[in-house]
């Protein structure tokens, strides 16, 4: 890794990152606040509590936890986090190559491996931070609005880290296309296109039985924080698969970047 490079990357994020953090945190806060203050929700919950309270407790379904987990999988969370992870990834190689700045940096005693690792050193904590932004937003709203239902803070924080892992997987795809392309726009178009297709597939494929199993090929199939938020069950298998989803494209991107000609810019 290269200290000066990491410092520059962090400096570049000094405005964007806090804004994305606030956006995602506000999304979490808003979601829980709406849940807490909505008369419809409150009436439904009171009715459920009267009629099925014992049953809900027995199976461990908490409407607040269910609601909060929906926010994690919502396009707003993915968009806010993807802006950072995919944005950083496509700029890292194809963007800098197109701009002509990559040639200036790599004409120095800086290996491509160090260039790549330095970007990862910013990408990984950034993704985790944005995942936690949503968790912190939710927890803040729970503290402020006192909604019906309960979420253990530690489950929210673990779910935040899991969300960060999903963002890292999306960033990995961005890196992969960035390592092959010579223009930022092309890398971005491929990344966004593939992510949208994967996201849609995770919802649509289960509707048609013969190909329902293919939904398991998308990273989104391995991100369901509901059981964790409701019952405190950490899905280690899903976490491992998500980590693999992040590692595979990142490794392929690193190999491709190390071997490719840098003719542009």
């Amino acid at each position, binding site marked *: 890794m290269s200290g000066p490079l990491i410092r*520059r990357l962090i400096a570049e994020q000094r405005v964007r990152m806090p804004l994305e953090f606030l956006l995602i945190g506000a999304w979490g806060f808003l979601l829980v606040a709406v849940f807490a203050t909505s008369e419809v929700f409150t009436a439904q919950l009171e009715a459920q509590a009267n009629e099925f309270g014992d049953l809900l407790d027995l199976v461990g379904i908490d409407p607040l936890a269910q609601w909060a987990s929906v926010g994690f999988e919502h396009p707003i969370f993915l968009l806010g986090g993807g802006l950072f992870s995919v944005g950083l990834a496509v700029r890292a190689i194809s963007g800098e190559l197109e701009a*002509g700045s990559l040639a*200036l940096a790599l004409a120095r*005693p*800086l290996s491509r491996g160090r260039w790549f690792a330095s970007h990862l050193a910013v990408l990984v904590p950034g993704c985790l931070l944005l995942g936690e932004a949503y968790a912190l937003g939710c927890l803040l709203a729970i503290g402020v609005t006192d909604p019906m239902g309960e979420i253990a803070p530690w489950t929210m924080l673990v779910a935040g880290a899991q969300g960060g892992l999903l963002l890292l997987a999306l960033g990995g795809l961005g890196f992969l296309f960035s390592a092959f392309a010579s223009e930022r726009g092309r890398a971005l178009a491929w990344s966004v296109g593939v992510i949208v297709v994967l996201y849609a597939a995770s919802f649509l494929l289960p509707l048609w039985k013969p190909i329902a199993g293919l939904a398991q090929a998308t990273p989104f199939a391995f991100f369901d924080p509901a059981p964790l938020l409701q019952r405190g069950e950490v899905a280690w298998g899903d976490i491992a698969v998500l980590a693999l989803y992040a590692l595979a494209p990142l490794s392929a991107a690193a190999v491709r970047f190390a*071997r490719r000609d840098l003719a542009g810019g």
Partner: protein
Amino acid sequence: MPPAAQLRGVSKRFGSFVALDAIDLAVSPGEIRGFLGPNGAGKTTAMRILVGLLRADGGEVSLLGGDPWSRPQVRTELGFLPSDPGLYGRMRGRDLLDHFAALSERPPVLREAACAHLRMTDEDLARPVRTYSKGMRQKLGVLQAVQHDPALLILDEPGEGLDPLVMSGLLALLRDRRDAGRAILFSSHVLAEVEALCDTVTMIRDGAIVGAGTIGEIAQRRSRQVVVEVADPVAAIELPGCELVDRAGGRATFSHYGELGPLLTALAALAPRDVRIQEASLDEVFMEYYGEAAP
């Protein structure tokens, strides 16, 4: 003394397009070598292979004693200016120079002197790069390449966008570095710059080297223009090593190749009214190498 940078029999293809065809190129400490060629001839490809941004398909590449592709550490003593340098627009000029100096792992010992040569003030360096004009950006590009006083400078059209005053400062700076024993590879389309600055020149065309040597040697290998005026307009004039280009009355214009001695003897025997012999300028040499009539 071994060359600071050397390509030996280096080839490079992009798909079916042959960008470089077994070229040789070397620049030694204390030498400024001009690298000339029309657009698309292969200059930038050769320079990027030397820096380690492109991998050669064949041949040997040596930069400061190592292979720049597999040993990035050899680039500690390299200063590189690509033809279109990308400078981070949001950074201030000074911060950008500090950043590149840190990446070079060398202190910017030459920054102040280079700023003076290029007329770059402290106020200029305090501004964000996005507010710079094209010429200012080019100056900053040159500064990031030279500020750590590298043993080897590879500059791809460094004069692009510079006004004559700054250009003369740049030439003086490069001469200083040459005199301090640094090796400089310099490409330019402005032949007057190359003629004024470079000790040696390598000329490339369609990915192949078509000429190399000192500027004097290259010019000598090319034709001189000989204009002879004789009293008798109908007499045939034959001169050794000369080809008739034009004849009007008693005045004939020739292209001459080779040694001057036999030509001068023949001219003396001719007793002409007037004789003019002109060396080919680098401009003319360039046109001979690269013009439509070139082989």
